[in-house]
Protein backbone atom coordinates (compact mmCIF):
# COMPACT_ATOMS: atom_id res chain seq x y z
CA UNK A 1 0.00 0.00 0.00
CA UNK A 2 2.63 2.42 1.12
CA UNK A 3 4.92 1.29 -1.64
CA UNK A 4 2.18 1.67 -4.16
CA UNK A 5 1.71 5.38 -3.44
CA UNK A 6 5.37 6.03 -2.84
CA UNK A 7 6.01 6.14 -6.57
CA UNK A 8 6.24 9.86 -7.37
CA UNK A 9 4.58 9.65 -10.78
CA UNK A 10 1.66 7.65 -9.44
CA UNK A 11 1.43 9.99 -6.52
CA UNK A 12 1.35 13.03 -8.81
CA UNK A 13 -1.48 11.54 -10.84
CA UNK A 14 -3.51 10.51 -7.81
CA UNK A 15 -2.93 13.76 -6.04
CA UNK A 16 -4.00 15.82 -9.03
CA UNK A 17 -7.27 13.88 -9.11
CA UNK A 18 -7.97 14.28 -5.38
CA UNK A 19 -7.03 17.94 -5.02
CA UNK A 20 -10.17 19.50 -6.61
CA UNK A 21 -12.39 17.47 -4.27
CA UNK A 22 -10.44 18.53 -1.23
CA UNK A 23 -10.53 22.12 -2.36
CA UNK A 24 -14.30 21.99 -2.84
CA UNK A 25 -14.86 20.33 0.51
CA UNK A 26 -12.68 22.94 2.16
CA UNK A 27 -14.53 25.85 0.58
CA UNK A 28 -17.93 24.39 1.50
CA UNK A 29 -16.87 23.82 5.09
CA UNK A 30 -15.37 27.29 5.33
CA UNK A 31 -18.55 28.84 3.91
CA UNK A 32 -20.87 27.01 6.25
CA UNK A 33 -18.51 27.26 9.19
CA UNK A 34 -18.04 31.00 8.84
CA UNK A 35 -21.79 31.51 8.47
CA UNK A 36 -22.47 29.66 11.71
CA UNK A 37 -19.46 31.11 13.48
CA UNK A 38 -20.21 34.72 12.69
CA UNK A 39 -23.97 34.95 12.15
CA UNK A 40 -25.88 31.97 13.36
CA UNK A 41 -24.50 31.02 16.73
CA UNK A 42 -25.47 32.21 20.16
CA UNK A 43 -23.48 34.57 22.31
CA UNK A 44 -21.89 32.91 25.29
CA UNK A 45 -23.33 34.15 28.58
CA UNK A 46 -19.84 34.54 30.05
CA UNK A 47 -17.62 35.29 27.09
CA UNK A 48 -20.00 37.40 25.01
CA UNK A 49 -19.00 37.65 21.38
CA UNK A 50 -15.43 36.63 22.08
CA UNK A 51 -16.68 33.07 21.97
CA UNK A 52 -16.52 33.48 18.19
CA UNK A 53 -12.75 33.62 18.45
CA UNK A 54 -12.92 30.07 19.77
CA UNK A 55 -14.18 28.80 16.41
CA UNK A 56 -10.76 29.63 15.01
CA UNK A 57 -8.65 29.23 18.10
CA UNK A 58 -9.69 25.72 19.10
CA UNK A 59 -9.52 24.11 15.63
CA UNK A 60 -6.18 25.85 15.04
CA UNK A 61 -4.83 24.39 18.28
CA UNK A 62 -6.09 20.95 17.28
CA UNK A 63 -4.43 21.32 13.90
CA UNK A 64 -1.20 22.41 15.54
CA UNK A 65 -1.05 19.08 17.35
CA UNK A 66 -2.37 17.12 14.39
CA UNK A 67 0.25 18.50 12.03
CA UNK A 68 3.04 17.79 14.47
CA UNK A 69 1.82 14.22 14.88
CA UNK A 70 1.56 13.84 11.10
CA UNK A 71 5.08 15.22 10.75
CA UNK A 72 6.42 12.82 13.37
CA UNK A 73 4.74 9.84 11.73
CA UNK A 74 6.04 10.87 8.32
CA UNK A 75 9.54 11.37 9.73
CA UNK A 76 9.43 7.95 11.38
CA UNK A 77 8.29 6.30 8.14
CA UNK A 78 10.97 8.15 6.23
CA UNK A 79 13.62 7.02 8.69
CA UNK A 80 12.58 3.40 9.11
CA UNK A 81 11.44 2.51 5.58
CA UNK A 82 13.49 5.16 3.75
CA UNK A 83 10.47 6.46 1.89
CA UNK A 84 11.40 9.61 0.02
CA UNK A 85 7.76 10.61 -0.21
CA UNK A 86 7.25 10.42 3.55
CA UNK A 87 10.23 12.68 4.02
CA UNK A 88 8.80 15.16 1.54
CA UNK A 89 5.44 14.98 3.33
CA UNK A 90 7.10 15.89 6.62
CA UNK A 91 8.82 18.83 4.99
CA UNK A 92 5.59 19.99 3.34
CA UNK A 93 3.66 19.75 6.60
CA UNK A 94 5.96 21.86 8.75
CA UNK A 95 5.02 25.35 7.50
CA UNK A 96 1.31 24.52 7.63
CA UNK A 97 1.64 23.27 11.19
CA UNK A 98 3.64 26.33 12.13
CA UNK A 99 0.95 28.56 10.62
CA UNK A 100 -1.80 26.86 12.64
CA UNK A 101 0.27 27.06 15.80
CA UNK A 102 0.86 30.73 15.15
CA UNK A 103 -2.89 31.25 14.65
CA UNK A 104 -3.66 29.41 17.88
CA UNK A 105 -1.24 31.69 19.73
CA UNK A 106 -2.46 34.93 18.17
CA UNK A 107 -6.18 34.20 18.49
CA UNK A 108 -5.61 32.98 22.03
CA UNK A 109 -3.94 36.26 22.79
CA UNK A 110 -6.81 38.20 21.18
CA UNK A 111 -9.23 36.24 23.31
CA UNK A 112 -7.16 36.64 26.45
CA UNK A 113 -7.01 40.42 26.32
CA UNK A 114 -10.77 41.03 26.89
CA UNK A 115 -11.25 37.94 29.05
CA UNK A 116 -8.18 37.96 31.26
CA UNK A 117 -7.17 41.58 30.73
CA UNK A 118 -3.76 40.74 29.31
CA UNK A 119 -2.35 39.75 25.94
CA UNK A 120 -0.14 37.06 27.31
CA UNK A 121 0.20 35.11 30.52
CA UNK A 122 2.76 32.47 31.28
CA UNK A 123 0.13 29.88 31.68
CA UNK A 124 0.77 26.20 31.07
CA UNK A 125 -1.31 25.77 27.92
CA UNK A 126 -0.05 28.91 26.22
CA UNK A 127 3.51 28.15 27.12
CA UNK A 128 3.45 24.61 25.80
CA UNK A 129 1.89 25.77 22.52
CA UNK A 130 4.67 28.36 22.30
CA UNK A 131 7.23 25.60 22.77
CA UNK A 132 5.48 23.64 20.03
CA UNK A 133 5.83 26.67 17.76
CA UNK A 134 9.58 26.76 18.48
CA UNK A 135 9.81 23.08 17.61
CA UNK A 136 8.23 23.77 14.22
CA UNK A 137 10.63 26.64 13.59
CA UNK A 138 13.58 24.56 14.75
CA UNK A 139 12.60 21.78 12.39
CA UNK A 140 12.40 24.12 9.41
CA UNK A 141 15.67 25.82 10.32
CA UNK A 142 17.57 22.56 10.76
CA UNK A 143 16.11 21.16 7.57
CA UNK A 144 17.44 24.16 5.70
CA UNK A 145 20.79 24.41 7.46
CA UNK A 146 22.74 21.90 5.36
CA UNK A 147 24.06 22.28 1.86
CA UNK A 148 23.42 18.63 1.21
CA UNK A 149 19.63 18.16 1.35
CA UNK A 150 19.74 14.52 2.45
CA UNK A 151 21.68 15.44 5.55
CA UNK A 152 19.11 18.09 6.54
CA UNK A 153 16.29 15.61 6.00
CA UNK A 154 17.85 12.98 8.25
CA UNK A 155 18.85 15.39 10.99
CA UNK A 156 15.47 17.11 11.09
CA UNK A 157 13.62 13.78 11.15
CA UNK A 158 15.49 12.89 14.32
CA UNK A 159 14.63 16.28 15.80
CA UNK A 160 10.91 15.84 15.12
CA UNK A 161 10.91 12.45 16.82
CA UNK A 162 12.84 13.73 19.83
CA UNK A 163 10.35 16.58 20.02
CA UNK A 164 7.45 14.18 19.75
CA UNK A 165 8.63 12.27 22.78
CA UNK A 166 9.46 15.44 24.62
CA UNK A 167 6.26 17.39 23.99
CA UNK A 168 4.15 15.49 26.56
CA UNK A 169 6.98 15.94 29.05
CA UNK A 170 7.15 19.65 28.37
CA UNK A 171 3.40 19.81 28.68
CA UNK A 172 3.42 17.97 31.98
CA UNK A 173 6.22 20.02 33.52
CA UNK A 174 4.66 23.28 32.42
CA UNK A 175 1.30 22.20 33.81
CA UNK A 176 2.96 21.67 37.11
CA UNK A 177 4.81 24.97 36.80
CA UNK A 178 1.89 27.33 36.41
CA UNK A 179 -1.69 27.19 35.24
CA UNK A 180 -4.60 29.50 34.56
CA UNK A 181 -6.12 28.17 31.35
CA UNK A 182 -9.60 26.69 31.56
CA UNK A 183 -9.89 22.92 31.35
CA UNK A 184 -10.78 21.26 28.11
CA UNK A 185 -14.49 21.56 27.43
CA UNK A 186 -15.09 19.63 24.24
CA UNK A 187 -13.04 16.47 24.31
CA UNK A 188 -14.03 15.09 27.68
CA UNK A 189 -14.98 11.65 28.91
CA UNK A 190 -18.40 12.79 30.12
CA UNK A 191 -19.31 14.52 26.85
CA UNK A 192 -18.91 18.13 25.79
CA UNK A 193 -19.94 20.78 28.30
CA UNK A 194 -20.59 23.51 25.80
CA UNK A 195 -23.82 24.30 24.03
CA UNK A 196 -24.68 22.26 20.94
CA UNK A 197 -25.22 25.44 18.92
CA UNK A 198 -21.57 26.21 19.43
CA UNK A 199 -20.45 22.74 18.45
CA UNK A 200 -21.78 23.16 14.91
CA UNK A 201 -19.49 26.04 13.90
CA UNK A 202 -16.65 24.51 15.87
CA UNK A 203 -16.74 21.22 14.03
CA UNK A 204 -17.40 22.86 10.66
CA UNK A 205 -14.36 25.07 11.11
CA UNK A 206 -12.32 22.11 12.28
CA UNK A 207 -13.33 20.19 9.17
CA UNK A 208 -12.48 23.19 7.00
CA UNK A 209 -9.01 23.40 8.56
CA UNK A 210 -8.55 19.69 8.12
CA UNK A 211 -9.43 19.87 4.39
CA UNK A 212 -7.26 22.95 4.05
CA UNK A 213 -4.34 20.98 5.42
CA UNK A 214 -4.82 17.98 3.15
CA UNK A 215 -5.29 20.07 0.05
CA UNK A 216 -2.33 22.33 0.72
CA UNK A 217 -0.01 19.55 1.80
CA UNK A 218 -0.65 17.73 -1.47
CA UNK A 219 0.16 20.87 -3.44
CA UNK A 220 3.31 21.40 -1.42
CA UNK A 221 4.39 17.77 -1.77
CA UNK A 222 4.00 17.95 -5.53
CA UNK A 223 6.06 21.10 -5.51
CA UNK A 224 8.83 19.41 -3.50
CA UNK A 225 8.86 16.51 -5.94
CA UNK A 226 9.37 18.96 -8.79
CA UNK A 227 12.18 20.64 -6.87
CA UNK A 228 13.87 17.27 -6.40
CA UNK A 229 13.55 16.57 -10.10
CA UNK A 230 14.97 19.99 -10.91
CA UNK A 231 17.92 19.32 -8.65
CA UNK A 232 18.59 16.04 -10.45
CA UNK A 233 18.49 17.82 -13.80
CA UNK A 234 20.82 20.53 -12.50
CA UNK A 235 23.34 17.88 -11.57
CA UNK A 236 23.10 16.47 -15.05
CA UNK A 237 23.48 19.93 -16.52
CA UNK A 238 26.65 20.50 -14.52
CA UNK A 239 28.17 17.16 -15.49
CA UNK A 240 26.97 17.24 -19.10
Amino acid sequence: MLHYFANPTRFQRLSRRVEPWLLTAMLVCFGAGLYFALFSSPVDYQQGHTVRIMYIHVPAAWMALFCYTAMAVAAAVAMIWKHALADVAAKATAPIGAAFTFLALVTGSLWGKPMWGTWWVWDARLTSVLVLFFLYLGYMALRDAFDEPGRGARASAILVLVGFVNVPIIKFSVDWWNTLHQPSSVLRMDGPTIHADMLTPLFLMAAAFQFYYFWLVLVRIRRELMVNRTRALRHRQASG
Partner: protein
Amino acid sequence: MSAFAVLFRREMRLAMRQSTDSFMVIAFFVVAVVLFPFGVGPEPNMLARIGPGVIWVAALLAAMLSMDRMFMGDYEDGSLELLVLSPVPLELVVLVKVLTHWLTTGLPLIVTAPLLFVMMNVPEDIWPVLLMTLLLGTPVLSLLGSVGAALTLGARRGGVLLSLLVLPLLIPVLIFAVGAGDAVLYGAGAKANLMLLGGMLLGALALTPWVTAHALREAVA
Protein backbone atom coordinates in the same frame (compact mmCIF):
# COMPACT_ATOMS: atom_id res chain seq x y z
CA MET B 1 25.96 51.18 -11.46
CA SER B 2 27.79 52.52 -8.45
CA ALA B 3 30.08 50.27 -6.46
CA PHE B 4 27.76 50.65 -3.48
CA ALA B 5 24.78 49.37 -5.43
CA VAL B 6 26.79 46.47 -6.86
CA LEU B 7 28.02 45.40 -3.42
CA PHE B 8 24.68 45.96 -1.76
CA ARG B 9 22.81 43.93 -4.33
CA ARG B 10 25.20 41.01 -3.93
CA GLU B 11 25.06 41.06 -0.13
CA MET B 12 21.27 41.28 -0.08
CA ARG B 13 20.98 38.50 -2.63
CA LEU B 14 23.22 36.26 -0.55
CA ALA B 15 21.32 37.15 2.62
CA MET B 16 17.95 36.52 0.97
CA ARG B 17 19.00 33.15 -0.39
CA GLN B 18 20.19 32.12 3.05
CA SER B 19 17.32 33.78 4.88
CA THR B 20 17.16 31.02 7.50
CA ASP B 21 20.40 32.46 8.89
CA SER B 22 18.77 35.69 9.90
CA PHE B 23 15.60 33.92 10.90
CA MET B 24 17.61 31.83 13.35
CA VAL B 25 18.96 34.96 15.01
CA ILE B 26 15.41 36.10 15.66
CA ALA B 27 14.41 32.68 16.94
CA PHE B 28 17.39 32.72 19.30
CA PHE B 29 16.37 36.18 20.50
CA VAL B 30 12.82 35.03 21.28
CA VAL B 31 13.86 31.74 22.87
CA ALA B 32 16.49 33.40 25.05
CA VAL B 33 13.93 35.88 26.40
CA VAL B 34 11.27 33.20 26.84
CA LEU B 35 13.62 31.21 29.08
CA PHE B 36 13.51 33.92 31.74
CA PRO B 37 9.91 33.45 32.93
CA PHE B 38 10.78 29.79 33.47
CA GLY B 39 13.88 30.72 35.40
CA VAL B 40 12.55 33.51 37.60
CA GLY B 41 8.85 32.60 37.63
CA PRO B 42 5.93 34.10 35.71
CA GLU B 43 5.03 36.81 38.22
CA PRO B 44 4.01 39.79 36.01
CA ASN B 45 5.56 42.58 38.10
CA MET B 46 8.86 40.81 38.32
CA LEU B 47 8.86 40.24 34.55
CA ALA B 48 8.02 43.90 33.96
CA ARG B 49 10.97 44.90 36.14
CA ILE B 50 13.55 42.74 34.39
CA GLY B 51 11.92 42.82 30.95
CA PRO B 52 13.80 45.67 29.25
CA GLY B 53 17.17 44.44 30.50
CA VAL B 54 16.51 40.85 29.54
CA ILE B 55 15.32 41.85 26.09
CA TRP B 56 18.36 44.05 25.51
CA VAL B 57 20.82 41.42 26.71
CA ALA B 58 19.13 38.81 24.53
CA ALA B 59 19.35 41.19 21.56
CA LEU B 60 23.07 41.65 22.24
CA LEU B 61 23.69 37.92 22.38
CA ALA B 62 21.57 37.27 19.30
CA ALA B 63 23.46 39.92 17.34
CA MET B 64 26.81 38.44 18.47
CA LEU B 65 25.65 35.02 17.36
CA SER B 66 25.36 36.17 13.78
CA MET B 67 28.44 38.37 13.85
CA ASP B 68 31.17 35.87 13.00
CA ARG B 69 29.27 35.19 9.79
CA MET B 70 29.84 38.73 8.56
CA PHE B 71 33.20 38.07 6.86
CA MET B 72 33.63 34.35 7.45
CA GLY B 73 32.11 33.14 4.18
CA ASP B 74 34.15 35.57 2.11
CA TYR B 75 37.28 34.76 4.08
CA GLU B 76 36.95 31.03 3.59
CA ASP B 77 36.19 31.01 -0.12
CA GLY B 78 38.77 33.64 -1.07
CA SER B 79 36.31 36.41 -1.89
CA LEU B 80 37.74 38.57 0.88
CA GLU B 81 41.18 38.73 -0.78
CA LEU B 82 39.52 39.83 -3.97
CA LEU B 83 37.45 42.45 -2.18
CA VAL B 84 40.65 43.78 -0.61
CA LEU B 85 42.24 43.86 -4.07
CA SER B 86 39.26 45.46 -5.79
CA PRO B 87 39.48 49.10 -6.82
CA VAL B 88 36.58 49.85 -4.47
CA PRO B 89 37.61 51.26 -1.07
CA LEU B 90 37.53 48.51 1.53
CA GLU B 91 35.77 50.86 3.94
CA LEU B 92 32.82 50.94 1.57
CA VAL B 93 32.77 47.15 1.46
CA VAL B 94 32.73 47.13 5.27
CA LEU B 95 29.89 49.66 5.41
CA VAL B 96 27.80 47.62 3.00
CA LYS B 97 28.47 44.47 5.05
CA VAL B 98 27.47 46.25 8.25
CA LEU B 99 24.38 47.67 6.60
CA THR B 100 23.21 44.29 5.35
CA HIS B 101 24.01 42.73 8.70
CA TRP B 102 21.82 45.32 10.37
CA LEU B 103 19.04 44.94 7.82
CA THR B 104 19.02 41.17 8.23
CA THR B 105 19.47 40.97 12.00
CA GLY B 106 19.08 44.34 13.73
CA LEU B 107 15.92 45.37 11.96
CA PRO B 108 14.15 42.01 12.44
CA LEU B 109 15.14 42.16 16.13
CA ILE B 110 13.42 45.53 16.42
CA VAL B 111 10.33 44.24 14.64
CA THR B 112 10.17 41.22 16.96
CA ALA B 113 10.77 43.21 20.15
CA PRO B 114 7.14 44.37 20.73
CA LEU B 115 6.08 40.73 20.85
CA LEU B 116 8.54 40.17 23.66
CA PHE B 117 7.43 43.37 25.40
CA VAL B 118 3.98 41.79 25.57
CA MET B 119 5.31 38.50 26.83
CA MET B 120 7.52 40.13 29.44
CA ASN B 121 4.69 42.44 30.50
CA VAL B 122 6.79 45.55 29.83
CA PRO B 123 4.71 48.69 30.61
CA GLU B 124 3.32 50.18 27.44
CA ASP B 125 4.52 53.70 28.33
CA ILE B 126 8.12 52.76 27.70
CA TRP B 127 7.63 50.79 24.48
CA PRO B 128 8.40 53.76 22.21
CA VAL B 129 11.55 54.63 24.14
CA LEU B 130 12.78 51.06 24.16
CA LEU B 131 12.16 50.77 20.44
CA MET B 132 14.11 53.99 19.94
CA THR B 133 17.02 52.61 21.96
CA LEU B 134 16.98 49.47 19.83
CA LEU B 135 16.86 51.56 16.68
CA LEU B 136 19.89 53.56 17.78
CA GLY B 137 21.68 50.71 19.55
CA THR B 138 21.51 47.79 17.14
CA PRO B 139 23.51 49.59 14.41
CA VAL B 140 26.23 50.11 17.04
CA LEU B 141 26.20 46.36 17.66
CA SER B 142 26.68 45.70 13.96
CA LEU B 143 29.43 48.30 13.66
CA LEU B 144 31.46 47.26 16.70
CA GLY B 145 30.76 43.64 15.90
CA SER B 146 32.35 44.12 12.49
CA VAL B 147 35.62 45.05 14.18
CA GLY B 148 35.53 41.90 16.28
CA ALA B 149 34.51 39.78 13.31
CA ALA B 150 37.44 41.09 11.28
CA LEU B 151 39.92 40.69 14.12
CA THR B 152 38.99 37.08 14.84
CA LEU B 153 39.09 35.88 11.22
CA GLY B 154 41.12 32.71 11.08
CA ALA B 155 41.43 32.53 14.87
CA ARG B 156 40.69 29.32 16.69
CA ARG B 157 37.18 29.40 18.26
CA GLY B 158 36.62 32.73 16.54
CA GLY B 159 32.95 32.93 17.48
CA VAL B 160 33.48 32.69 21.23
CA LEU B 161 36.49 34.93 21.09
CA LEU B 162 34.49 37.49 19.15
CA SER B 163 31.80 37.68 21.84
CA LEU B 164 34.48 37.92 24.48
CA LEU B 165 36.08 40.88 22.70
CA VAL B 166 33.00 42.80 21.68
CA LEU B 167 30.48 42.29 24.49
CA PRO B 168 32.50 44.30 27.05
CA LEU B 169 32.74 47.13 24.53
CA LEU B 170 28.96 47.17 24.26
CA ILE B 171 28.31 47.62 27.98
CA PRO B 172 27.77 51.40 27.64
CA VAL B 173 25.14 50.83 24.97
CA LEU B 174 23.35 48.42 27.29
CA ILE B 175 23.50 50.82 30.25
CA PHE B 176 22.08 53.80 28.40
CA ALA B 177 19.48 51.79 26.51
CA VAL B 178 17.97 50.13 29.57
CA GLY B 179 18.45 53.37 31.52
CA ALA B 180 16.24 55.15 29.00
CA GLY B 181 13.30 52.93 29.91
CA ASP B 182 13.81 53.51 33.64
CA ALA B 183 14.17 57.24 33.08
CA VAL B 184 10.72 57.37 31.51
CA LEU B 185 9.20 55.29 34.32
CA TYR B 186 10.64 57.65 36.94
CA GLY B 187 9.40 60.64 35.00
CA ALA B 188 12.84 61.97 34.12
CA GLY B 189 12.48 61.66 30.34
CA ALA B 190 14.82 59.67 28.17
CA LYS B 191 16.20 62.44 26.02
CA ALA B 192 19.68 62.41 27.54
CA ASN B 193 20.01 58.64 27.15
CA LEU B 194 18.81 58.72 23.57
CA MET B 195 21.22 61.54 22.75
CA LEU B 196 24.08 59.53 24.20
CA LEU B 197 23.09 56.48 22.20
CA GLY B 198 22.86 58.63 19.09
CA GLY B 199 26.32 59.97 19.82
CA MET B 200 27.70 56.47 20.17
CA LEU B 201 26.13 55.52 16.87
CA LEU B 202 27.70 58.47 15.07
CA GLY B 203 31.08 57.81 16.68
CA ALA B 204 30.95 54.14 15.74
CA LEU B 205 29.86 55.00 12.22
CA ALA B 206 32.79 57.37 11.81
CA LEU B 207 35.49 55.13 13.25
CA THR B 208 34.73 51.45 12.93
CA PRO B 209 34.77 51.09 9.11
CA TRP B 210 38.41 52.20 9.03
CA VAL B 211 39.39 49.96 11.91
CA THR B 212 37.56 47.00 10.40
CA ALA B 213 39.05 47.59 6.96
CA HIS B 214 42.51 47.65 8.50
CA ALA B 215 41.83 44.43 10.39
CA LEU B 216 40.60 42.79 7.18
CA ARG B 217 43.80 43.73 5.35
CA GLU B 218 45.71 42.10 8.19
CA ALA B 219 43.52 39.02 7.97
CA VAL B 220 44.28 38.31 4.30
CA ALA B 221 47.97 39.22 4.42
